[in-house]
């Protein structure tokens, strides 16, 4: 047996393993999504019944129709959620980038203390301070407003964002900035032109994280909004699918989840090449 034949066989085995493993992983992640899609076009009573070949493939668009035409208009809720989640993602990214740069590059006496305070605030679940938060927001007339909800979500997402951005800046060699300085660039120019390509993965991570967290946030949205026209997706979905004794309309729920899934999937695919890089950046140096 020649050497090259063994090598080919190894490559062959590797390829087969890769295909089998890849297919397995694909099924593990894709099947639940496909199942949700399939369930969303089944009537509610078929979903909860034991599978019966006679009715199992009775497909219907009624769930989606009910979501769009029902008392809590889901399309409007999708719009509200998009406004809140996109604004939160943008605001969080801008603020976290600025703060991250400051913590990574400027040395000042209270820096470490301030940074630990920011990180420590991640330990306090906002549910614990919901009532005072509501009173405060109410005083500032920020309840019943999507703008208020954006400010609230940004506050909740900032600590993690600052942590990621600080690490992103820390992993950039200082010499790069020094040479830019010598060439006459100011700090703003350095960040936007010289460092930008290096910190984009971190920024994408922060944006994606803030978007997903805001997109699925329930309790804050419920507490700070009392106008059904401003409700976001999670609140509108809970209102729609549940009866007074906990009966769940699984058809509506599946259809609503499918609609709620779309922006997340789109955004994740668009940003995924940055995402993993961003999470790992500064992991060893930070």
């Amino acid at each position, binding site marked *: 047996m020649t050497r090259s034949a063994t090598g080919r066989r190894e490559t062959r085995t590797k390829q087969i393993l890769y295909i089998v493993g890849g297919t397995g992983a694909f099924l593990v992640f894709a099947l639940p999504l496909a199942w949700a899609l399939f369930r969303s076009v089944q*009537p*509610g*009573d078929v979903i*909860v*019944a034991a599978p019966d070949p006679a009715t199992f493939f009775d497909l219907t668009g009624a769930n989606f129709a009910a979501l769009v035409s*029902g*008392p*809590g208009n889901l399309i409007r809720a999708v719009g509200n959620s998009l406004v809140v989640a996109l604004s939160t993602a943008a605001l969080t990214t801008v603020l976290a980038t600025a703060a991250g740069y400051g913590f990574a590059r400027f040395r000042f006496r209270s820096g470490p203390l301030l940074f630990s305070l920011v990180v420590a605030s991640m330990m306090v679940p906002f*549910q614990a301070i*919901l*009532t005072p938060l*509501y*009173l405060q927001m*109410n005083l500032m007339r920020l*309840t019943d407003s999507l703008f208020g909800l954006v400010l609230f979500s940004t506050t909740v997402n900032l600590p993690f964002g600052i942590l990621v951005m600080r690490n992103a800046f820390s992993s950039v060699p200082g010499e790069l900035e020094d040479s830019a300085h010598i060439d006459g660039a100011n700090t703003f120019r350095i960040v936007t032109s010289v460092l930008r390509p290096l910190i984009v993965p971190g920024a994408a991570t922060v944006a994606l994280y803030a978007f997903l967290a805001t997109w699925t946030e329930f*309790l804050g949205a*419920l*507490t700070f909004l*009392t*106008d*059904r026209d401003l409700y976001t997706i999670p*609140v509108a979905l*809970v*209102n*729609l699918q*549940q*009866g*007074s*004794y*906990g*009966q*769940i309309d*699984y058809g509506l729920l599946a259809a609503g989840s499918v609609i709620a899934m779309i922006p997340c999937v789109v955004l994740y695919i668009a940003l995924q090449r940055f995402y993993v890089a961003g999470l790992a950046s500064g992991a060893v140096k930070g």
Partner: protein
Amino acid sequence: MSTSPQTSRRGFLRLAGLGALAAGLPACSSVLPAPDTSATGFGTSATGVVRVWCRAATQTGLTDLVDRFNASQDRLVVELTPIPDVQYVTKLATAIRARTVPDLVDIDDINSLLFVFRDAFTDLTDLIAELDFADRLSPGHLGLATVDGRRYAVPYLADNSALFCNTRLFEQAGLDVDAATTNLDTLLDAARRITALGGDVRGWTFPGNSQGALGFVVQPHVWAADTDLLRGEVGAQTGNVAGNEAVARVLEFYRALWVDGLVPPENFADDASRWGADFRAGRIGMMPTNYSTVTTDADPALVAATTVRLLPGPGGGRAFFDGGDNMCIPRGAENASGAWEFVRFALDLPQQSALPDGGYTPVRSDVATPEFAARYPQVLPPLQAQNEGYAPQTLSYNEIYNQPDGPWLTMFRRAVFDGEIEAAMAEAQQGYDRILGQAQA
């Protein structure tokens, strides 16, 4: 009735809610000012916006009602906000604490007393007395918002538990509905004979892991024997579980249903998220539940073949859970006059007669005309026997009956699935006493 399948998150949120309520309301020592309900023109000539909160479970009906009201006149505009049921108490308590209340709240009647006791609602006694159908309003609903003879809420819709019987299966088993449903022994016998029809047909069904739904459908058997699991006046209540013969008989009845296989085996884990699906599939002889669970998305022919009886006690008697919604005007409401105008519209005969279309029962017994009776026969029995309706007046309903770790569900499951009836009742007695003691301290 606000109940739900419980997850630990929900449980946590509810605890947080009760905490907020406990912390929020007493701190609000200066209660909000009550609107002047005796002003001339009150409830007839208001203008502007009326902000109404309702619970999500009844939002379909409320949305129709609001649309009709807004179309009926041009002085007032009602804005409706549905709130998820499990968050309702928390959210209202927070709003009261922040002194920004809606003009009208459509609230689960079992929760009204919590707020009434903390002076959060406006006294409506005189306004209700002026209604020419005041004596036709559901007494159970009113009882849940009455303190020292003063009424702080007016009923809007009823959501009653009753026994729904599939007459096709009764006929196949050669049973007469009235004879079969007079007491627990006849029910058990009927369940046996229906199950004996074979296949996947069962005599009975119940959501064995849903504390709220079980509180709704099991308790009336006890009340039919003129007793309750609570005793004493609100503020000085204790449990009435250990040694309560009616409670023991009811638990024995459910134990027998389970042991003898007269219910589907999935009842063991059923958290009511699929409540009624088996009945709507025509496989169940008898099901204690409410009108909407049986009729929503159901085959009209099966609904037509369904007949309703009130829930019997161990040795006879009848009762049903008088659940549903009360309407209350929070103290501090800016447009109380407009709110009352909307309430009077909601209680008008056309609106009340249309309630069954959304799955609910009217709260006025004079709605039951012959035409109404012919159209909605399954709604009729509780409506015609309003005085048999009951709901416990207590500040601790949620903690005892609607919490997944509350003493009610623990007792029911231990007694029915483990067979330790006496021990389960003794344990529950301690749980009831502890919770009531804390709430009243």
